[in-house]
């Protein structure tokens, strides 16, 4: 069994991370009735007996003493991390996993990446190393951050670089929260584009998420639960936004949205933690969904987002789950995959779903989805038997689709609007290590990424003949 380490950077990263740990504990409590520290738990938690000096790590199979998260928390302001340490999750982290400063990064990528990046380099590497040493077999680093600010964006991508340098063989999966067009941080386009270059070069896989999509999903659930349809009642604990049953009591603003992203992370790792008839490990995700090294951005969509209280699940309901996964309402980023080109698609199913259900739905949906010519049947499927809390089954779809091109084009345009007028540029350029070339390189990187998507898009709808086969002399 392998372990993963979560690295949460910045305010957004840490708030999402906090929801993740809460929901992970809830999920394991639901499944693990005997209180034994099993393989599944060990993928995210260490079991520590604090009576034994020097850490006292306990092995798999023993009773749970004290669970410690395999995490590193980084923030250049103290507010969020302090809140975590005073809240119900304080037992799950110890001080060696935290790195904080006081003054924050002022929404400035350069401050996060260059200034704090060099000042704290040693300490960050040290904490990462410690977390890695506690693992028997470290498979993956999950980085959670936002793109629009200073710490998550700047310091977060510096951490990504360090992960590649220090642990080149460990997979790096990044969950990035992208700013919506209506974002209130003026410099978010600068921060995002500068961060994009790092993501393109150093991440194995990036799962972009947009705040606006999360808001839309939350509103939809609120509408349903406020009696949108008469007679339909949402089952307790089943809404994807619900943190009920976890450690934290009252829910804070953004909690609902962050729960969605936390559920995403739980579902990606479910097949690696629990058993199933067709397992899908984390290293298989990058292998199957990344046909060309730089095109590693995946569109996530998650269903169901809630379950109605009546428990009977006829096949029709199951099929609806698959259809929903390909509808825009369930995507965590605003994009239009059905009108662009699919390069690859992964379906991770949890719960009581059989291979025939999977095959039937793939055959049903396939004709309406445009796939690239050399990957007409490009599906990667995984079946995990353990469903998430409150549901009988769930589906996470990750698609490598050229529709992200429009997201990146929009980002690029917002960047250019500011850059043309050199607005706020001096805040960045007077940082040690930062030069005009950083900006131009970042833009070039983004443009060539867009160009790669363009090339693939150009093949859409064209009849492509089979490549001429090798001929054998007879």
């Amino acid at each position: 069994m392998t372990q993963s380490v979560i690295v949460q950077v910045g305010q957004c990263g840490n708030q999402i991370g906090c929801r993740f740990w809460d929901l992970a504990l809830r999920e394991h409590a639901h499944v693990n009735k005997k209180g034994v520290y099993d393989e599944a738990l060990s993928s995210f938690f260490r079991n520590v007996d604090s009576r034994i000096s020097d850490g006292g790590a306990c092995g798999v199979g023993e009773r749970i003493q004290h669970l410690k998260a395999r995490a590193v928390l980084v923030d250049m302001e103290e507010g969020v991390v302090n809140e975590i340490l005073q809240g119900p999750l304080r037992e799950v982290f110890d001080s060696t996993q935290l790195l904080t400063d006081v003054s924050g990064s002022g929404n400035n990528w350069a401050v996060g990446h260059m200034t704090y990046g060099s000042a704290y380099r040693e300490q960050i590497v040290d904490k990462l190393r410690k977390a890695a040493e506690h693992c028997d077999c470290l498979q993956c680093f999950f980085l959670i951050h936002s793109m629009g600010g200073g710490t998550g964006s700047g310091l977060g991508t510096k951490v990504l670089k360090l992960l590649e340098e220090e642990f080149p063989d460990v997979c790096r999966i990044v969950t990035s929260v992208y700013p919506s067009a209506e974002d209130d941080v003026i410099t978010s386009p600068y921060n995002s584009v500068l961060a994009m270059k790092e993501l393109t070069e150093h991440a194995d896989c990036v799962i972009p998420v947009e705040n606006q999509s999360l808001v839309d999903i939350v509103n939809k659930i609120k509408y349903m639960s406020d009696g949108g349809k008469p007679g339909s009642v949402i089952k307790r604990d089943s809404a994807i936004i619900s943190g009920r049953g976890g450690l934290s009591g009252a829910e804070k603003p953004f909690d609902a949205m962050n729960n969605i992203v936390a559920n995403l992370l739980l579902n990606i790792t479910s097949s690696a933690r629990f058993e199933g008839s067709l397992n899908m490990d984390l290293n298989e995700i990058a292998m199957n969904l990344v046909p060309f090294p730089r095109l590693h951005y995946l569109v996530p969509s998650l269903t169901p987002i809630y379950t109605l209280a009546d428990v009977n699940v006829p096949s029709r309901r199951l099929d609806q789950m698959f259809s929903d996964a390909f509808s825009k309402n369930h995507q965590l980023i605003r994009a239009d995959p059905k009108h662009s080109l699919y390069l690859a698609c992964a379906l991770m199913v949890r719960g009581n779903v059989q291979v025939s259900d999977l095959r039937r739905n793939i055959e049903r949906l396939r004709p309406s989805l445009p796939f690239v010519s050399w990957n007409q049947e490009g599906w990667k499927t995984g079946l995990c038997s353990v469903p998430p809390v409150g549901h009988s089954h769930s589906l996470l779809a990750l698609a490598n689709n050229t529709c992200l091109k429009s997201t990146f084009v929009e980002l690029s345009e917002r960047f250019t609007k500011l850059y043309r007028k050199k607005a706020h540029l001096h805040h960045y350029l007077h940082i040690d290590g930062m030069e005009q070339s950083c900006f131009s390189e970042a833009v070039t990187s983004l443009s060539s990424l867009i160009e790669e998507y363009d090339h693939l898009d150009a093949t859409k709808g064209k009849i492509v003949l089979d490549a001429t086969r090798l001929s054998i002399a007879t």
Partner: protein
Amino acid sequence: MSVVTLQLGQCGNQVGQELYDVICSDAQDAQRSTTHTTVSCERFFHQNKHGDLVARAVLIDMEPKVIKQSMKKAADSGRWRYGDDSHFSQKQGSGNNWANGFCVHGPRHIELVEELVRREVERCDRLAGFMTMMSVAGGTGSGVGTYVTQSLRDVYSKSFILNHLTWPYGTGEVIVQNYNSVLTLAHLYQLSDAILVHENDTVHRICSQLLNIKHISFSDVNRVIAHQLGSVLQPALTADSHGVYSRNPLGELVSSLACHPEYKLLSVCTIPQMPSSSIAYSTFSWPGQLKHLRQMLISNSKMEDGIDWQMRPPSASERTKSLTGASFNTSLANLLILRGKDVYSAEAGGFEDPALYTSWLSPETAFTRWNSPVPFNKYEKSATLVSNSQALLKPLDNMVRKAWNMFASRAYIHQYIRFGISEEDFLDSFTSVEQVISSYTQLCN
């Protein structure tokens, strides 16, 4: 003589467990003749000091979950188990990457695997040979499986090696499955004595149309594969065995079917296949079964449903190429295995028709028949046909076509290069498999 099985990867371990289950329950069925039971148990199990039946199997996977499950399922059956120390697993899988399996995991762990195999072999009085079970779509079964086969060939150069492969659904379980399949087949062809193939698509159809299963799970699929494999491997009386059960099942299988190094792909058909609840209400007749089986062979229909009865073997003057549309399925060799009541009364002359076979092999050499008076797996009479024919040509060609299209755009190649194989290696593998396709296409000339 005993067969040592190597179960590799998730598929190999899941199917293998179902196979031993079928064999064990069939062997122990109350109406068994004791000779049959003894031979079957000797072939597949040894007895530990508590008198339990322990499978002659080595379980190999790069991550532990599946092996744990298979061992538990076996022990829970109460009738047989896996050896406590006969398994090898690591913590992290091969990531669906053939190169990771073949170039990294294989070499890294081969010594420990060889040790486990050696122990199993030493427990056999006489070794009939090896059977490896794996899928071609993933990383461990395909990559590590190929590397382990290479090692078996090196260490046990005189033993028979039968590779059982499961081919994935055409519409994708793994995106890079076609690459993994081409690389596996190209390498295995040099190492294996015979390659027995089951296709998930075909087995799935058997489950839905013949067995009437509504929600088909991988267990259902695996059980059908186990049933078909079991019907090939259970003891039988052959022409060479002189009135007793054959002591050399793998050798006889290979020599009757895979007599030419360019032709090693074998497909299997078993009839009847019906829901177990229907068995009591059905009548079985040899003439009926053999007629159906022969037509299934001719029309290349892999199951007993929707058979094309119009298809006839061509006369000597006409021979058609089989890559284009539904046309006649030419065989190199066929092995018919009949199990059940009144087996000696069955007339199999229809399979000796020269029109079924390629011209350069006489039907006497091409056709072999094994018999067993003991019914198999609850069917009063059942017939299995193992075929070395053009039956797998179309699926193989599709697989190569898709892989080649992907290779033409170099998609995913960087993932394989990272682990140590080059574009040259890919081209070599494509060439080898195209050679196999060409050979089988030529069979009708």
